[in-house]
């Protein structure tokens, strides 16, 4: 996707914020594009990993946080694993996601932040994940009730998914971890 640099003065805020959260020095990038060549979703997105870095270095702000890759990156870490400069691209993507939530940017297809929120909520409440609970909450949140509706009876019959949450976790540490985070 072409990178359009507007004449308006822009803040170099995003690059600094990414650096602060991830601890990664983006400026070492050679633009060799090994990350993009190995990225499993590169063909499905408009802005591949190497272009994210280019945009960061050009101080492109909003369009970078709103890039489709931010919530389509599968965190597979192929990019980091193959980078000749050991740039932790996966950490950069995590930083962009954290910034995107902080700025409350437009929700993308699939609403991954909502899923993450409910996943972590079940961990906070039960100490362990509760699949059916978070799936139900996510489905209500996305009004997508029918996807996979045919699968749950079969999964429950095979006991391939738990009906009830686990109550065996000792929440001593978990409670403190979540309290400290807020």
């Amino acid at each position: 996707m072409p990178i359009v640099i507007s004449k308006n003065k822009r803040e170099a805020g995003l690059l600094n914020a990414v650096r602060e959260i991830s601890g990664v020095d983006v400026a070492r990038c050679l633009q060799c594009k090994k990350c993009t060549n190995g990225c499993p979703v590169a063909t499905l997105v408009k802005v591949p990993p190497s272009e994210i870095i280019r945009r960061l270095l050009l101080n492109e702000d909003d369009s970078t946080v709103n890039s489709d890759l931010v919530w389509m990156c599968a965190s597979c870490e192929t990019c980091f694993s193959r980078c000749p400069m050991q740039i932790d691209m996966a950490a950069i993507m995590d930083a962009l996601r954290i910034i995107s939530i902080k700025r409350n940017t437009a929700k993308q297809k699939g609403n991954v932040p909502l899923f993450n929120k409910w996943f972590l909520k079940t961990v906070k409440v039960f100490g362990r994940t509760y699949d059916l609970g978070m799936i139900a909450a996510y489905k209500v949140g996305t009004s997508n009730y029918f996807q996979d509706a045919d699968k749950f009876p079969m999964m429950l019959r095979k006991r391939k998914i738990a009906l009830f949450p686990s109550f065996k976790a000792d929440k001593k540490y978990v409670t403190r971890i979540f309290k400290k985070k807020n």
Partner: protein
Amino acid sequence: MKYAYYPGCSAESTARDQYMSIREVSKILDIELIEPKGWTCCGSTPAHQTDKILSLALPAANLLMAKKMELDMVVFCAACYNRMKVANYEIQKYPDIRKEVADSLGEEYDGSVNVHHFVEVLIKNVGVKKLQEAFTHSLDGLKVANYYGCLLVRPKEATNFDDPENPTIMDSLITIMGGESIDWPHKVECCGGGFALTRTDVVIELSNSILGMAKAAGAECMAVACPMCQVNLDLRQSDINKVKHSSHNIPIVYITQLVGLCLGIAPEKLGMDKCVVSPRSIIEAIKSNY
């Protein structure tokens, strides 16, 4: 052989089959697995996408439990394994992170608990000789595509599992069991992982390419070491066929289920009835060594 064993949340839900097979296999091979009492979630992908310290403190809490038990930690779930290895790596490498994690936990953890994957325990600690002696059955030349996925092998700096581009540890286990590990290029490709629910379209794209490559390479089944990969490749296979007009019909089993079969354990005890794509062809291929 005694270890702290972290089953991971999926062991109680979508990966009960994996849990059952590990328990059965360990019984026969004299591997004592003790679960840290009250173990909690590792945070998986949602945690590291949300907050760095959260994503390190959650696995560290469980590692701290193992430290108090004075045992090494054994994990099977690739995501849990990855998060624990990354937590140890970051805590050891960066003093300020160690301090922040300690503050979050309310206790100091130094990143010193050794974390092993169950397959590593089988090959490196139980050993090839003891395994060969214990196997009563053989895979009898069954063509197996070993699928490692992302989180065991990457990032190499933290997990140090095997070669990040061409791992072979699962292949060697299959060979010991008398199976044929096929050489194929999608061993460490991504199946779409945590997008199972949110971006099913991405899972269908990526998993379709993996299933297609396994088929092209002549695989009769796929052995996996990650609960997320198992669900994406097995449960989603019918959806993939529908969307992609393909005809995939390849059983996706945990490598521990194959180990169990070769130890003479009944398929039901290994949870093989939970597979969506029938593993009947695998069960029928198993031959007694006697």
